[in-house]
């Protein structure tokens, strides 16, 4: 099937320097290139200060790159002011106009675009229906709850039908339950409107739940781009593996055994099979990662062996911290089935069995 494969948004070699003291300019973004497709739910994930919000602001036009291009459907928009870009933003603080009603807020963009009043009214009604807020049409924005403000902010940004919707940590001010609800709601809205969403968050769980693809950022660079499964299951770098979920890091001697396959020998002499990202040739020593839930604790001999150090129970799961014979620490996560006990005790000798294709060699 032939389809226009031009990306909705593309950043090419974007760098943003902020004046620092003397020569030490701060590199908020360092030669970032990324391509985001039409109708994609794309997430920029990273700790605070990693450059994700800066990238979002450059796309919105609130800030301008020091170098590089930002293309919207192939056109460079990097130097356009925000009011000339068909891109809208949902702000972290919502930034609802306090001197206007809910309806006036939602209709603001269309009014600025010079649309006729009847058109604006109809569109505002449609937006209110979309976010289930019909009853609060004429309320002041200061008279509605945080969750409702969030919906108004969404409706306001969607009303002008932007090519791309930018969301800057929009859920961070909500409490846990409401946040979960809004995550599903956002997915639904993206599906119904067919608009490209670029979502910024520092919450890895949120990113994994909602995104089609995720870009993990740190120190002004994109570290890895991929589907949530890729990012979680096949972390390419230590930063990514560390930032997302819990992981066991093991240093091992590597021998290549096949295409993307290696054998890793640990300090204790135990060996496990691991996979390598395509195009990466490890030699000598490297770090391998194993997710705690991909390992299983057994009473007899396993791939690895050690002694139970500590048992930490938390509702659905239990983490068992094991002291490996080679000296490394290793955590195994078990789902709590029926009994509250995991069947092991501190000081027990245990084996650890690791499934196939779950250990991964890191690039760094």
């Amino acid at each position, binding site marked *: 099937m032939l389809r226009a494969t031009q990306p909705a948004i593309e950043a090419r070699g974007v760098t943003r320097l902020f004046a620092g003291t003397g020569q030490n300019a701060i590199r908020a973004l360092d030669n970032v290139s990324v391509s985001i497709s039409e109708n994609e739910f794309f997430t920029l994930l990273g700790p605070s200060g990693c450059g994700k919000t800066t990238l979002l602001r450059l796309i919105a036009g609130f800030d*301008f*790159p*020091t*170098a590089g291009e930002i293309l919207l459907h192939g056109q460079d928009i*990097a*130097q356009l002011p925000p009011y000339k870009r068909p891109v809208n933003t949902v702000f972290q603080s919502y930034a609802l106009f306090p001197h206007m009603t809910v309806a006036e807020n939602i209709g603001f963009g269309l009014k600025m675009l010079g649309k006729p009043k009847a058109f604006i009214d109809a569109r505002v009604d449609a937006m209110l229906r979309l976010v289930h807020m019909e009853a609060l049409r004429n309320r002041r924005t200061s008279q509605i709850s945080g969750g409702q403000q969030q919906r108004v902010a969404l409706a306001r940004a969607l009303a002008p039908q932007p090519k791309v919707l930018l969301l800057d940590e929009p859920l961070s001010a909500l409490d846990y339950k409401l946040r979960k609800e809004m995550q599903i709601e956002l997915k639904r809205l993206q599906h119904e409107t067919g608009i490209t969403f670029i979502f910024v968050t520092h919450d890895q769980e949120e990113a994994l739940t909602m995104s089609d693809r995720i870009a993990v950022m740190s120190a002004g660079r994109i570290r890895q781009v991929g589907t949530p499964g890729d990012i979680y299951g096949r972390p390419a770098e230590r930063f990514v593996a560390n930032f997302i979920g819990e992981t066991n890091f093991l240093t091992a001697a590597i021998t290549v055994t096949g295409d993307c396959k290696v054998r890793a020998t640990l300090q204790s002499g135990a060996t496990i099979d691991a996979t390598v990202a395509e195009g990466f040739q490890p030699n000598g020593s490297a770090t391998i990662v194993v997710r705690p839930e991909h390992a299983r604790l057994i009473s007899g001999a396993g791939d690895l062996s050690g002694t139970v150090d500590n048992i930490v129970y938390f509702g659905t799961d239990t983490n068992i911290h094991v002291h490996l014979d080679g000296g490394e620490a290793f955590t195994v996560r078990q789902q709590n089935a029926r009994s509250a006990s995991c069947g092991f005790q501190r000081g027990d000798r245990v084996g650890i069995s690791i499934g196939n294709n779950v250990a991964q060699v890191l690039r760094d």
Partner: protein
Amino acid sequence: MANASEVAEKAERDDIRSRWLLSAPALLIVFLAAVGPLLIVVVYSFLTPGNYGDVKWQFSIDAWVNVLLERDVFDDTLSLAGAHLLIFWRSVSLSALTTILTLIFGFPTAYFIATRPEGRREIWLFLITIPFWTNLLIRTFAVEEVLRNDGIINSTLQLLGITDHPVQLLYTNFAVLLGMVYVFLPLMVLPLYASMEKIDFRLVEAAYDLYATRFQVLRRIIIPLVKPGVVAGSILVFIPSLGAYVTPRVLGGGTNLMIGNLIELQFGQGRNWPLGAALSISLMAIVMVALLVYVRNTTRLDGDHG
């Protein structure tokens, strides 16, 4: 394509230029009707007095000499101008006393307001703001009515038989001091309140938890926390006290002059404009010193907090 950083620099230059244009009217009016004339005062202080007021355009430093010294009419010797020194001393000491007294009265008042429940604070604050925005002349006049020989203080004293003839309260240094404390009190309370409002009372709880007494809490916790407010309030009271004109004129009755009245005299009966100008500059200099102390204090306080 233009270099990105050049574009940014041009935008910044444009921004600064439009900011200068926007502020031009305010700068111009303040410059023409406040800053500029001050410079002319400096010039006038080096001229010779005219016969009927105003000046003769003849350079002279007599005015500056006369600020502190006086020339004997007979033998032309110079000696310290006792009257001027007395007035300077009265201004500085009355202003200092005013500052201390407003602090003594203002501190508990501000604390009282700051510790009211949230909803009721504004009402008390409002009660402080009303005198603040009431005409200074009217407030001074109100004090005059209370202090006069047939005013309520003297009537009450006589009614109670404490005294059989009116005590002279008006036209004394005491009256001027009382009047200044009265009119400048809100200027002390408001900045004190502003810093007390921010007190985190968990710190006070922590101090009590660590065996502090009420007085120790006041001395070791509350006063250090509100020190910026104390400094701001003191400066807000001290500076206008130094330049006070209306209050000493109404309550001091022409005998208990302060610098402000002395300056006025030179432009009125004294007909010595250069001396008046020199005295004005001297007053400004004292104020500037006070302000410098204030700035030094606040910057040091800021430093303390990181």
